[in-house]
């Protein structure tokens, strides 16, 4: 079989797979769709598609809206590529993205030059919005964030651990990502401020599976920690829980983590070991807000084979906030949408969202939940 033949065949397949150019208004979804974080990004994509489908069905707009996916593979270089691609397409009115702070930060600079609004559903590093205050910022303020930054969750968890659970000594763990480490650092600040002691601090890597050695060390630590605070995502959180139980670390030894771990996937990874874990979530859990309940049901109906991921409802909200801004702006005008976004006062699955002068959500509500394995649910803890 000659090389030419194969090349020709490949080109034909490629041509067939190319999409046509239609006249629509696009909301770009710039998240990792493949690669290690692909799972999370696919969830966000689904959430935005749901929001867009509802908008089209309601006929609020005289044009069709499409959720256009762009894959940044959680790689900052890809993220900037994708940002360039997005800004060069005039049909894109705003961006829901990125997922990783490491991607959101450089990509935002590209969006600023266009300018096109970026509403992040999951990037929690303060730098993402803070960089707009630098003198080198090359455009208007157009970064928004529907997810609170790490300090909100971390400090709440510290208060919870100290006051509600009465813990005085905790072991600190994080996954060395901007999200996880940021969360852990905030917890530490809050916990120490109220007189608690962090007996040890360790970082793991996303993708690591074996924490037995680390957990054994914590278990045998002479300072006798009363629990672990973990900043990170559900896969590592689940594995930690599973291995903790295998080593005999259970109640009253507490496991506290954040919204990156609060997802049903946790039960897939940890099974019964997840029982009793404390997980905080920003805002109120989706199942408890009436508006959110509808989202949960609609998601299940539209995507019966896919499970909701921790940040999906943030993606849904980000999309809806953009749609609302576009409605107020009177059409898909990028600059007008940016201006309207600043004036957002949106009631939705996250409660009421208002942006402060940096673009961060003013919502400081955090709810602590406890995992119940046999119900595969998270019960709010007051």
């Amino acid at each position: 079989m000659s090389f030419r033949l194969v090349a020709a065949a490949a080109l034909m397949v490629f041509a067939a797979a190319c999409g046509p150019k239609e006249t629509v208004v696009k909301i770009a979804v710039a998240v990792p769709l493949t690669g290690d974080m692909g799972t999370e990004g696919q969830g966000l994509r689904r959430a935005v598609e749901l929001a867009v489908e509802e908008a089209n069905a309601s006929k609020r707009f005289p044009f069709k809206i499409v959720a256009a996916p762009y894959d940044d593979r959680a790689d900052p270089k890809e993220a900037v590529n994708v940002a360039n691609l997005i800004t060069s397409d005039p049909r894109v009115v705003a961006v829901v993205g990125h997922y990783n702070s490491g991607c959101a930060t450089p990509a935002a600079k590209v969006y600023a030059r266009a300018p096109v609004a970026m509403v992040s559903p999951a990037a929690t590093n303060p730098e993402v919005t803070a960089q707009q205050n630098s003198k080198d910022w090359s455009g208007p303020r157009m970064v928004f964030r529907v997810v609170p930054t790490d300090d909100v969750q971390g400090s709440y968890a510290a208060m919870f651990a100290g006051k509600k659970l009465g813990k005085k000594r905790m072991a600190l763990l994080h996954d060395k990502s901007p999200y996880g480490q940021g969360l852990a650092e905030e917890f530490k600040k809050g916990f120490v401020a109220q007189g608690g002691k962090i007996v040890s601090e360790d970082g793991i890597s996303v993708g690591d599976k074996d924490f037995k050695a680390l957990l054994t060390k914590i278990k045998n630590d002479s300072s006798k920690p009363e629990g672990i605070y973990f900043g990170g995502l559900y896969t590592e959180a689940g594995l930690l829980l599973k291995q903790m139980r295998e080593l005999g670390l259970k109640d009253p030894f507490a496991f506290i983590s954040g919204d990156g771990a609060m997802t049903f996937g946790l039960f897939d990874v940890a099974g019964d070991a997840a029982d009793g874990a404390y997980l905080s979530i920003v805002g109120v859990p989706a199942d408890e807000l009436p508006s959110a309940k509808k989202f949960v049901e609609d998601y299940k109906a539209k995507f019966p084979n896919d499970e909701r991921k921790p940040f999906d409802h943030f993606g849904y909200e980000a999309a809806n906030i953009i749609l609302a801004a576009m409605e107020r702006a009177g059409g898909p005008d990028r600059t007008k949408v940016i201006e309207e976004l600043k004036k957002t006062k949106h009631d939705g699955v996250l409660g009421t969202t208002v942006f402060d002068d940096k673009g961060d959500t003013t919502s400081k509500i955090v709810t602590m939940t406890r995992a119940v394995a046999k119900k595969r649910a998270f019960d709010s803890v007051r």
Partner: protein
Amino acid sequence: MKKLINNRWTPWIALAAAAIFPFIAGAIDANYLVRVGGVIGLFMLLGLGLNFTLGYAGLFDLGFIAFYAIGAYTTAIAMRAGVPAPFALVLAVLVTVGFRALLGLTILRLRGDYLAVVTMGFGEIARLTINNLDALTNGPKGLQIAPWRPLNFLSTDPNIQYYLMILAAVALGVVASARLEDSRVGRAWIAIREDEIAARLSGIPVRHYKLLAFTLSAAFAGLAGGLFAQWEQFVTPESFVFWESILVVSIVVLGGMGSIAGVLVGALVLVGFPPLMQWKLSADWINYRYLFFGLILVLVTLFRPQGILPSSRREAELTS
């Protein structure tokens, strides 16, 4: 096709076309390609660099991206400390070469696949160290860099400015590679690659030349890293994972080991293909990008194992 490659005017025409491209890109709705072009250019630089180590000297290096990272972070840290941008670039090259020389002195006595694992190990050591030394590198949160726009008179678009700067660097790299290839040094490298013992017996100071190849590579990586950092204005450890090292190795091998044109084409294909797919594939097919990419790797290797544009020596070796 061969005639086209070997024509002495081809490189100049290609260079001119590449230089003009960004200015006409706007007109043909291809601004995105300027960005992609810049990224391809960075990998061309990396490929040209690794070509010294792998292509000419035959040393199997699986951790090359670590030096890209060192170049990028040196630039970032220097600029944040107030060092002016051009000097930061020079510093990046120097520091990168320094680290590489140290590493080379330590490990170059290892053979073949042992060298591969050690270089892979060093790549991971570099990345993890950068991720862990929060005090110096801000760890996973990354470092922001002030913009440097020396070509503002040509265009205010940073993509165009950096595209041109990278193009200049690549051109420089090509000239340097061509000169070295055709010199005593280049011939010594090839001799070492083909048969190390025979080379030593012929009087070639093998250790020195290996170290030279190894270290020169780093200059390219450092420069590329510095330009990358200044362009993106942001460095984070996530940009320098093991997979990128494998990508550069693939560029050199698939393009044609020891062939300058081959490396350039290899970078064009391997680095250009995924963004091209991202641009043109409809939403349903986006997830298949890397599946296609893997298929291309396998198919091109199966049908042209000597590389897309192998050096004439290699072509003779592998197809006789």
